[in-house]
């Protein structure tokens, strides 16, 4: 693994913006890589983990920062 992770800053964008940005990024990176998405939209912070589970990837972390959420996902397939 390269150790570098892709960070998607989707703060300020509404549902489904952050999720769609994440999905675009997930398509680009190789399996095993980690993608982080930053979202100021609370419903996305709740809903992105649901998508990750359904799509069969790994939810590494959901962390509340000041005024936004950091959702960390590992591509599994």
């Amino acid at each position, binding site marked *: 693994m390269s150790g570098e992770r892709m960070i998607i800053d989707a703060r300020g964008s*509404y549902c489904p913006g952050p*999720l*769609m940005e994440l999905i*675009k990024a997930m398509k680009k990176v190789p399996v095993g890589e980690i993608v982080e998405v930053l979202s100021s939209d609370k419903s996305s912070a709740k809903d992105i983990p649901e998508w990750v589970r359904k799509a069969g990837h790994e939810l590494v972390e959901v962390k509340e920062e000041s005024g936004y959420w950091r959702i960390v996902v590992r591509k599994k397939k």
Partner: protein
Amino acid sequence: MKIALVLVSGEIEKLQAASIIASVASTIGEVMIFATMDGLMAFKKDVVKNRAWKAGELGKSMLSANVPLFIDVLRNAKEVGNLKIYACGMIMDMLNLKKEDFVDVFDDVIGVSKFLEMIEDAKVLFI
């Protein structure tokens, strides 16, 4: 997962909701949208240009806030996911409209029989 969405409403709130559901679903499964009646007219170039959709209080604030509108949400979903959008041929014939009278999102112009055949094994949402 296979989902079919029958879009008959021209209300911006319903168009927005439909586009969001369709776009997320298209990243996990296969989604087909059949736009007919007012749901088809919502894609007419002049309607889109003038943002002349039927809108309630929420719809009006959506139109004035800077949220991505359903057409952009759908276009984005077509790039990222598995989404096909079909225009209803019957309405187009009746009103003498061509594919060029609509914004460029449609994969094809089809009739009810074709749509019914395509969605045989899909869950159907009627919006």
